[in-house]
């Protein structure tokens, strides 16, 4: 392939119990208690390698965990995992079958080492459920590499200094992960592929909804670049921007590497120079402030890097940003480099003095940062490492998505070596009977379900059914429609109105048949408007045994006199003269909302709208 290669990993929370305990998969705001833990790299993981990792762990990162009603000893890592939730396994296998993937014969749960504190155990439990399969995106094949079932991590509620606080409610919620091969060639195609996979997952009827219930990891490499993973994208709409941004970044880095090679640039060598004395009287508040606090200014020369650090020809960010992000990993907030100087309060004279001190030639660049001794040295080491990588082009890494569509450095890409068997969870044989049962009950696609519902309930407005299928669970829709039919729904229009009202009123589940029927009759007889239906439902739910009359009385419904309606309308119009003169007819919608609010649903929307229009015209 000549273009970029893009692969996706879609993580979807499942509406099943927690994967390894019998806690509910629900988030909570009430915290029952807290405890503090440390995580250490284990003996074998360290082996003879990675002094840096050991140094990190010796820094003593401590993590605070909040216990909630959705967590037990398993989430607290105080009890071994229970048998995996059977519904979650069925769901993961179902997703695999829907994608045409081949399930494994025996599921083996693994521990994937994660030391950022988001898992109390220090690892995430995950299993590969199936391999292969494909989806079609705009007629093009995207191969599926794996379908996995894993536990969600704890929810980060606070970060700072040398630790973080996590809430245990989210930990252990089952996630199905669908990973594609890097068959995607363009940003928009990636978005479409994510949409297609998301739709398929929702077709199971068991995909959790809401913020954070779907997360995407995007793997991107351009020719001559390297695999970079942007991890944890939550907004589908942003996928294209992240990918375009990353393609641009990789291409820019390749361009920079080419220039560096022509100049025979080299990695910075030797120790950083202490240039604190050169900046003693500087006008840069940031620098002088940090020095006043006891910080030292450390500088290094970047041989042949002039021009590579600042903004590049395409308007994108140069290496300076990359270097600064590495410094941040050890807690140094920022650095300054020669491409952006003079500036930020650093004068030309100061720049020259530093250049002289570092013996910079015309194609050399330099950078400096201000931090206390050890931290500064650690930051310089990271920056040096990153500068060396720039000579080769694009380093493999994991990046965090930024709200502006860009991304920032997070950590190196983890390898497969971080996985080892979860011996506390026995392997699960995938029986032929189980697959047969699941194959026979594969969920229907949304399109099929819409068609079926429309055929079965011809009286209900088609558009309302479509929206309902896209937004709500199938079971709920079917149940409500059944109940509406069972009440002998009057005219289709009333039935449609009640359908929507019931569907979007949380209390509606508690409605008895009599109560539902009374709503129909009341509406048909015009004793209240359709806008009042949710309030009536809520009243029924809160007051068992209530009659329609008492409900209408309590919520102040019942038809309003036309005089009162006119009065409210003229009040609202008078209060919003400016809005009307500015927006003309465009003001109708907001004013309509206000009027209906004051009427508390006691009048028919259509009548109100006509009256309001008349009143507004008077003004114009």
């Amino acid at each position: 392939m000549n273009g970029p290669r893009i692969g996706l990993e879609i993580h979807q929370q499942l509406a099943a119990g927690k994967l390894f305990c019998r806690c509910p998969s629900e988030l909570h705001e009430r915290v029952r208690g807290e405890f503090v833990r440390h995580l250490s790299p284990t003996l074998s993981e360290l082996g003879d390698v990675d002094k840096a990792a050991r140094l990190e762990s010796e820094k003593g990162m401590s993590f605070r965990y909040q216990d909630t009603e959705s967590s037990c000893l398993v989430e607290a890592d105080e009890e071994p995992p229970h048998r995996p939730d059977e519904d979650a396994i069925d769901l993961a296998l179902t997703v695999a079958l829907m994608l045409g993937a081949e399930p494994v014969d025996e599921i083996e749960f693994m521990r994937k080492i994660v030391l950022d504190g988001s898992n109390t155990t220090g690892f995430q439990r995950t299993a590969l459920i199936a391999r292969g399969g494909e989806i079609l995106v705009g007629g093009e094949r995207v191969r599926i590499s794996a379908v996995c079932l894993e536990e969600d991590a704890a929810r980060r509620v606070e970060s700072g200094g040398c630790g973080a606080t996590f809430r245990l409610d989210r930990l252990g919620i089952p996630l199905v992960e669908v990973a594609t091969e890097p068959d995607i060639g363009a940003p928009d195609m990636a978005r479409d592929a994510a949409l297609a996979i998301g739709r398929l997952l929702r077709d199971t009827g068991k995909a959790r909804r809401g913020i954070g219930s779907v997360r995407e990891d995007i793997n991107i490499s351009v020719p001559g670049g390297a695999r970079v993973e942007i991890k944890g994208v939550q907004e589908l709409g942003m996928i294209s921007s992240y990918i375009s941004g990353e393609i641009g970044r990789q291409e820019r880095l390749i361009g920079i590497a080419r220039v560096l090679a022509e100049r025979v640039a080299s990695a910075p060598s030797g120790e950083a120079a202490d240039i604190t004395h050169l900046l003693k009287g500087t006008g840069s508040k940031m620098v002088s402030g940090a020095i006043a606090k006891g910080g030292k200014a450390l500088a290094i020369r970047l041989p042949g890097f002039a021009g590579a650090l600042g903004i590049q020809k395409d308007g994108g960010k140069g290496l300076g940003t990359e270097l600064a992000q590495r410094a941040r990993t050890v807690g140094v907030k920022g650095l300054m480099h020669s491409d952006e100087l003079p500036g930020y309060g650093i004068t030309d004279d100061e720049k020259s003095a530093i250049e002289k001190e570092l013996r910079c030639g015309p194609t050399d660049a330099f950078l400096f940062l201000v931090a206390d001794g050890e931290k500064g040295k650690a930051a310089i080491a990271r920056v040096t490492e990153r500068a060396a990588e720039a000579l080769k082009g694009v380093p493999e890494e994991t990046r965090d998505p930024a709200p502006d569509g860009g991304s920032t450095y997070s950590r190196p890409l983890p390898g497969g070596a971080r996985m080892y068997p979860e011996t506390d969870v026995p392997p699960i044989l995938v029986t032929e009977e189980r697959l047969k049962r699941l194959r026979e009950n594969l969920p229907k696609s949304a399109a099929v379900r819409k068609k079926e519902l429309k055929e079965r309930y011809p009286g209900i407005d088609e558009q309302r059914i479509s929206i309902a299928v896209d937004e709500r669970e199938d079971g709920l829709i079917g149940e409500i429609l059944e109940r509406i039919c069972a009440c002998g729904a009057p005219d289709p229009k009333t039935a449609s109105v009640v359908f929507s009202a019931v569907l979007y009123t949380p209390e509606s589940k508690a409605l008895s048949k009599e109560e539902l029927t009374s709503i129909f009759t009341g509406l048909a007889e015009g004793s209240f408007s359709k806008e009042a239906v949710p309030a009536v439902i809520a009243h029924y739910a809160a007051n068992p045994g209530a009659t329609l009359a008492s409900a209408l009385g309590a919520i102040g419904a019942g038809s309003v006199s036309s005089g009162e309606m006119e009065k409210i309308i003229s009040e609202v119009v008078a209060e919003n003269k400016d809005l009307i003169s500015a927006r003309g007819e465009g003001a109708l919608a907001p004013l309509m909302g206000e009027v209906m609010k004051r009427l508390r649903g006691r009048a028919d929307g259509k009548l109100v709208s006509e009256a309001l229009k008349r009143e507004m015209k008077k003004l114009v």
Partner: protein
Amino acid sequence: MAIGHPVNMSYEAEVLKALDGIGARPGDIVRMEGGRKGAEGVLMPRHEFTSKDIIVVKLKNGYNIGLRLERDSKLVLMKKGIGLPERSVPKVGMSKELPAVKLIGTGGTIASYVDYKTGAVHPALKADELVASAPELADICNIDSEVLYSILSEDMTVEYWQNIAEHAFEALKGGAAGVVIAHGTDTMAFTAAAVSFMLPGLNAPVVLTGSQRSSDRPSSDARANLLSAARLAAYGDLGEVAILMHSGSSDDSAIVHRGTRARKMHSTRRDAFRTMGGEPIGTVGEDGISLTGEHRGRGTTCPELKKDMDDAVGLVYAYPGMHEKVLGASMDGMRGIVIAGTGLGHLPSKLLPSIEKFINGGGHAVMTTQCLGGAVNLSVYSNGRALARAGVIEGTDMLPEVAWVKLMWVLGQKVSGEKVGGLMASNLAGEMSERRVLD
């Protein structure tokens, strides 16, 4: 051992035959061909619960999957494994300036590591591995470590206890400031009690510690416990055998229990241990050692080593309808029996004749209470008085298992029969108390 089982390397029957046929061993790269289920990866050892006809391979992406060996599956050995490389254990340098502490390894999950290739969990077999699991030990004290055993603590016997006590004794005689014993948590309290009785006149801390989450996990409590235990052994003003484990779910504070008063009261939690019938000795936390409970301080005289024990002692738990056979079998051929009686120290009345017979035959019977809190009193109810008349010794508020260890030790001291009761009723190592107070 609390959690984590070693993984069985061995395949069985047909699968084994097929693997043998191509000469494949765990660690080798194999390829299974046949339909869409084909896969290439590292052959993994099987889990105890892996189904018989399943082969487990580790794919390139790190995941293990189980594939069924079917008649038409074709297995190919792609590459002999690189073998399991010898783990290099970083040598931790010790400072002679710091107090000397002897670290004795006996097994359990405190010092185990995982082989990432196979997933097998191995116990630390070398002294260096013990220290390497918490290199910060070198900042606390001058550690001399020795792995005596690598066993699960449920497999401990009297002989192991004797060997442990002897090593602790030798270390203290040799000038160590204290001793740390890394031990499986299941029977840690038994060993602590045994060593308590075997080292009368103890002059320094002998600290048993372990972990409830094995040390092959990043979240293991092993490291924090080991470091706190070393701190206590090196600097604590304590002349007793103690158990040190987490005081709560957090990693930042450990609690010190008297060796003859501690009990594992939870199967999985980090703070599983409790001091029964009294206050814990103290805590070891980030802000230092704080020994606020009653305790014996360090001494200048050398302890004695009295390690003889008579293991012909049984321990039974009383329950309603208890069958004579159960009690009889527990006393048959034994020289002592400890009963964890109900309430104040009772046993179904029908078992009285068996007890009488045992005592009349020269056996020693000690009554304790399964309530675990409070003391035995054989004077309150007629059943108790009958047991007392028969010659049953009141174990006051000793924990049943501590009384059991103590009776073995007392019988091991070869005292005359009539002195046994007196010794059992004396407080030798803080195992009993004369007063019980409101909390």
